């Protein structure tokens, strides 16, 4: 069960991440994108899900990641990520509810440089009973 105290809270990113050209290249190669100067629209999931896992599985929040199913996903891209960007990714637990024993959690991830929000994304995560 998610800790009720964590609902509505924003957890700062735990590390500073430098986007590399090679990780953009690898992502572009999967989808056949030839313009590798910027990251494709869904690239940031690579950062946001990893950060969400660290935060949501912390004892403070208490989510079990191995029971997790991804329900939906949305991106709001202010400016595409590119190689050399140094970013952090915060996670906000916007809501949590229980349906038929499953926990349904909505998490917003904000990826920012020191002075600019680049991508916000919303993930609905279902933790199966």
């Amino acid at each position, binding site marked *: 069960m998610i800790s009720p105290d964590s609902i509505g809270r924003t957890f700062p990113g735990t590390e500073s991440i430098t986007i590399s050209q090679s990780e953009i290249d690898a992502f572009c190669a*999967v989808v056949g994108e030839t*313009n590798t100067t910027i990251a494709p629209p869904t690239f940031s999931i690579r950062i946001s899900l990893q950060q969400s896992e660290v935060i949501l599985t912390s004892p403070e929040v208490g989510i079990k990641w191995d029971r997790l199913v*991804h*329900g939906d996903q949305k991106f709001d891209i202010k400016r595409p990520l590119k190689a050399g960007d140094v970013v952090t990714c915060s996670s906000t637990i916007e809501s949590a509810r229980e349906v038929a024993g499953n926990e349904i959690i909505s998490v917003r991830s904000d990826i920012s440089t020191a002075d600019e929000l680049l991508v916000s994304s919303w993930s609905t995560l279902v933790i199966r009973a």
Partner: protein
Amino acid sequence: MVNAGDPRMIKDQVLAEQVFYVNRALLKQYADASGDQNPIHQDEAFAKSVGLPDVIAHGMLTMALVGKYVSDIAGGSAKVLEFGGRFTKPVIVPAGQEVDLTVSATVTEVADGKATLSLSATSAGVKVLGMAKAVIEL
């Protein structure tokens, strides 16, 4: 038909369908590119042990491919402002097969230099994304 990226994009316009092909090698490639190494996307015995019919594609791989479709329509990734959808059914990827991911879109709104697209994504005739939508800059 109005071409992709054409500023004349109009409401209710149906955009050309594109078919992507997904196989086990692409799942491995996406696992490495995304960092999502969940065995349900690579290991058939494991996938079946948790009640799945077979190995399934990462939902986010499906979205990445639909995102490529949107980028192409927009005239580049830089013009994709919003993109989202719900994972309704998995894309099932049996060994040795190439399964389709068939994507199409309808323009639902054109305003303020932006177009909103309603996206359809199916695999083997089954709808795999629900309420999928993108906003692009014209």
